[in-house]
């Protein structure tokens, strides 16, 4: 297999905790993303699921170069972006885009839609100034908005329409990969479906690759052919969507799917025991598997040794010492 469009290799993102005042120097580091590796091919959509605080959003922001990683590589179209100086990175910026979770936060309320959509062009100095407006208009029509939207502020639009504007802004630089950071989480169900349909249409039309970040397994399964599961910054399982839902291999995946209503996960499988403590209650990750403290299948080994990711079946990998039988 040739090199994928986007390839993460042992990507690690950690932050210094605390405000970093004069007296607080050298306090602990918090690792949000811990040695994550995966690839996304051209025209592929990879889903990334996990509960709040699992590092999904941080990872997405690192992919579009909003946050500098503390370790590992982000390879895009054969180039390691993490090694590039900012000037050289500019060439890659238009090719990587992001749609943020909250469209009210991601658009300046005092900008007109025209300014919002054309801002990437202005900042990246793409195309002729005279073309910007026609480009913006074409994209707004493509995402289902009228020409009148151009001169209005984002506050005049509904949540679904704002997310369409955000999508138009992401498309304006003609990207190859778009990170979708929970693009539908703030919307009602019918609007979610329409946005997902729009995203699917656009993907086909422009041959886009998506990294679809969500906690909503249903939405992910609609758009993504493969899904990666993140738990406390560690990638615990990656598998084709259908297999993952039908027969989760990692106990955490099973627990996550167990939170779904029965009509999604299928009648035949009972919900795995939950009653697990919230993420924040867990202490720092020890030498073992990060999920071990909550895991009903944890062995002695799980607490002592971090499981390596290994292939299970054809296109499936799991990082677990004691995976569920279904997959094996």
């Amino acid at each position: 297999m040739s090199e994928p469009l986007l390839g993460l290799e042992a990507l690690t993102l950690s932050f210094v905790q605390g405000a970093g005042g004069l007296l607080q120097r050298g306090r602990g580091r918090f690792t949000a993303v811990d040695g994550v590796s995966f690839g996304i091919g051209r025209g592929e959509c990879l889903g990334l699921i996990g509960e709040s605080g699992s590092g999904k959003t941080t990872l997405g922001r690192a992919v579009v170069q909003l946050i500098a990683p503390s370790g590992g590589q982000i390879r895009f179209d054969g180039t390691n972006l993490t090694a590039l100086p900012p000037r050289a990175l500019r060439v890659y910026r238009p090719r990587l885009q992001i749609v943020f979770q909250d469209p009210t936060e991601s658009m300046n309320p005092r900008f007109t839609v025209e300014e919002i959509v054309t801002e990437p062009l202005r900042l990246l100095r793409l195309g002729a100034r005279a073309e910007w407006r026609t480009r913006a208009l074409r994209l707004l029509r493509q995402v289902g908005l009228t020409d009148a939207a151009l001169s209005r502020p984002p506050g005049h639009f509904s949540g679904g329409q704002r997310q369409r504007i955000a999508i138009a802004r992401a498309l304006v630089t003609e990207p190859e990969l778009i990170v979708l950071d929970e693009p539908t989480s703030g919307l009602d169900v019918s609007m979610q479906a329409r946005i997902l349909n729009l995203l699917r249409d656009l993907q086909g039309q422009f041959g886009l690759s998506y990294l679809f970040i969500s906690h909503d397994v249903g939405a992910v399964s609609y758009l993504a052919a493969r899904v990666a599961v993140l738990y406390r910054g560690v990638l615990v399982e990656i598998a084709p969507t259908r297999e993952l839902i039908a027969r989760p291999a990692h106990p955490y995946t099973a627990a996550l799917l167990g939170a779904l209503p029965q009509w999604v996960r299928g009648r035949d499988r009972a919900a795995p025991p939950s009653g697990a403590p919230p993420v924040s209650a867990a202490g720092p990750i020890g030498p073992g598997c990060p999920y071990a403290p909550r895991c009903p299948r944890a062995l002695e080994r799980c607490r002592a040794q971090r499981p390596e990711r290994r292939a299970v079946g054809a296109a499936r990998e799991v990082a677990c010492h004691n995976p569920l039988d279904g997959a094996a």
Partner: protein
Amino acid sequence: MSEAAPRRWGFLPLLRWGAFGGRWRAQPLVASGLAVFLVLVAFAWLGPHLYTISPYAIHPHRLFRPPSARYPFGTDDLGRSFLARMMYGGQPSLGVAIVGSVVAMLIGLGYGMASGLSPPWVDKVLMRLLDALLALPTLVLMIFFAAIVPLGPLSLIVLLGLVSWPGLARIVRNEVLAYKERDYVLAARQYGARTAYLARKHLLRAMFPIVVVNATFTVADLILTLAGLSFLGLGIQPPTPSWGGLLGNGSNLAITGSWWLILFPGLAILLAILSLNLVGQGLLNRLEGR
């Protein structure tokens, strides 16, 4: 410019009243305050065109006349028309305060934005400097300056502008810190936006309502400070009238029983400050969604 070019000032409508999210009719505080203030402004600048008696003409035979048809506000200790003096006195009182507040807003906005956008240690230094400035009482500072600089409308504008910006600077700096972590600012940074661009395009517009509110309060403050200075004999110098100076003069002459020399300048100052505070408070309520 071709038809398809982006409209450079297309955002301007977003900065108007809409920034405060409402209609005039829904804002009795703002509307009434503004009406009163505009009446005062008209009194000072249009009044002299209608009531043409000179404020400097001395009439030794008509000293301390109470209000009458010919002298609606009476006459002062030199027999000058007090109405004319009140009208002309409004010009430096309101004018210096308004322009001085614009100066203060510009400095405060610049300092606040620079501090908020600077690296944390620069920000810290700038803010401690601000604390030091805020600790100095304005009036005392003004008395100090008034002792070294020749007083006139221009020097007063500069002095008042120079002493009354720190409050706004702190507010702006805090707002900038809040705004610069927004996703849209991060996104702009991702596209290689420089700090100057963020300040100009994103933050300046966000600061607009705060600056407007602060400006109204500052004008009111400056009217009072200026009146206080004139009252002490440090503001606008006689024979040029100013409301504060007239009030000071009137209170010195209180023993003559000339109540109109105290009532009218006092009322004018009160109305100016009250009306501006109504406007400011109304806008603030709106901003905070009350």
